[in-house]
């Protein structure tokens, strides 16, 4: 179980006016074991910052993040991340990239490559294990990124807009693959996205973020049945899907900062 309690984070003194940016304010969130939580919000709302905080890659001002009761102070072996820009080592083969996390943990080459081969099969990259990352398409690269994270058998998978940079068709295929894989492994997942469809399709619950300062606006339960991998098309046409999607859009439109607040231009002019 992941608990985020009263999390506040401020980036100090980075703006030209010398002021600080409040990235997160009083974020409270609870993610159950084996739950798929999607975090949805407008760009720049701090949802990626929250994910990096859970990953132990950034520090915050106050509040606490606990995983199974233990406070997060840095990266840990029970968590693994999937990055939007994939971040594959360009000098390593697909297989070595997938085995990278295991290698860092000191697993012997033979063992980690055997383990990595299982994941090559799981993510559908058989035959590509000796290729270099630059020889793969964007979608295949992200499959490697997913396999690398799954290889260390994390209790928590942290995914930062992993399909955000992909074209529509590739994204669809990878969403289906992720649903299929997740329904087999049931790892706890925190999945950051700015796509409403993606948030609904993948998540058990959706944490809706508002921007500036970033905070949890609302948590919605997705009433769609599992397994969803059977027939994604009919799920998307179902009344439940359409209802929750329009509810999300309502809230997102209300919180659009450029519609609600006076433009920052006014301040510069004065």
């Amino acid at each position, binding site marked *: 179980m992941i608990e985020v309690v009263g999390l506040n984070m401020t980036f100090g003194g980075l703006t030209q006016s010398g002021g600080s940016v409040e990235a997160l304010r009083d974020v409270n969130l609870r993610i159950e074991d084996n739950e798929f939580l999607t975090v949805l919000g407008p760009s720049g709302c701090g949802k990626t910052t929250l994910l990096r905080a859970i990953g132990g890659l950034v520090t915050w001002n106050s509040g606490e993040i606990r995983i199974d009761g233990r406070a997060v102070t840095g990266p840990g072996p029970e968590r693994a991340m999937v*990055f939007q820009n994939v971040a594959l080592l360009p000098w390593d083969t697909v297989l070595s990239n997938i085995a990278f996390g295991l290698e*860092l943990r000191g697993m012997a080459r033979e063992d980690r490559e055997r383990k990595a081969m299982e994941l090559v099969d799981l993510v559908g990259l058989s035959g590509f294990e000796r290729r270099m990352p630059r020889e793969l398409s964007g979608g295949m690269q992200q499959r490697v990124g997913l396999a690398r994270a799954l290889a260390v058998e994390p209790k928590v998978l942290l995914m930062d807009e992993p399909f955000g940079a992909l074209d529509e068709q590739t994204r669809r295929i990878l969403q289906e693959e992720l649903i299929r894989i997740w329904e087999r492994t049931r790892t706890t997942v925190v999945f950051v996205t700015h796509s409403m469809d993606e948030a609904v399709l993948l998540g058990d619950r959706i944490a809706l973020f508002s921007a500036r300062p970033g905070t949890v606006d609302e948590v919605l339960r997705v009433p769609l049945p599992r397994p969803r991998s059977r027939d994604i098309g009919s799920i998307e046409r179902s009344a439940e899907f359409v209802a929750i999607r329009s509810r999300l859009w309502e809230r997102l439109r209300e919180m659009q900062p450029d519609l609600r607040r006076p433009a920052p231009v006014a301040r510069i002019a004065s």
Partner: protein
Amino acid sequence: MSSVGSSAIGQRIAASHTTYRVLTFALFAAAWEAYASQARSLLIPRFSETVIGFFTLLTDRHFWEALFISNQSLVLGFSIAVVLGIPLGLAMGRFRAAERAVDVYLNILLVTPMAALIPILLMSLGLTLASRVVLVVLFSIVMIIVNSRAGVRQVDPSLIEMARSFGASERQIWWRVLLPGSLPAVMTGVRIGLGRAVTGMVIVELLMVAVGIGGLILEYRGFFKADLLYGTVVIVVLEALALITLARRLERRVAPWARQSGVMERA
């Protein structure tokens, strides 16, 4: 099928490149020959005389000894520059403290005309191999440091973050991310540094310690042996070209994932 076709085209392009090179060189040689025969100067050999001088030198033991002496300072100085320069540059790229400590001296080396240092070196070290070696080091180490530093800095920060997220230690980050990531730029630095080392080797011999190839050049100039003088210069140029081609090959071989890595080509 298509790969066969494209390689045939590749060969044709390569062939036309060679043809061009031969043609321009022939033109250059003819112009040289014409100008020198018309000038009739003791100081300007004809192209054909230079060619003969070139082969005369290749059979001359005296010349090979000079080449050996010069290359002593090149090999020693360049090796020292590589061994010191790469770690120093890498450390400067990653650690603020190293950057602060060394940056001033690096900038001094970058802006100082190296030739101005020669008298100072000779006064402190004398007309020795040591002073020649030190000069070669000073000539070549700057480019090696600057490129190594740039190499570490240009490593994609998201790779470092990714490694950290999987629990990598600083040591593991060095071995698995920073070193391979900076390798292309380091190799570029080594190649540029090699060119500068050859320059340093010849300059110190020309300006102060009249031994080796530089000494030979001065000697031939003194006796108006223009053909041998030109022949010597040609051989030095050929040696430098051969070394740099070798370095370029090595660069491509050790870092095939980096197509273009020219970071700071201001040699």
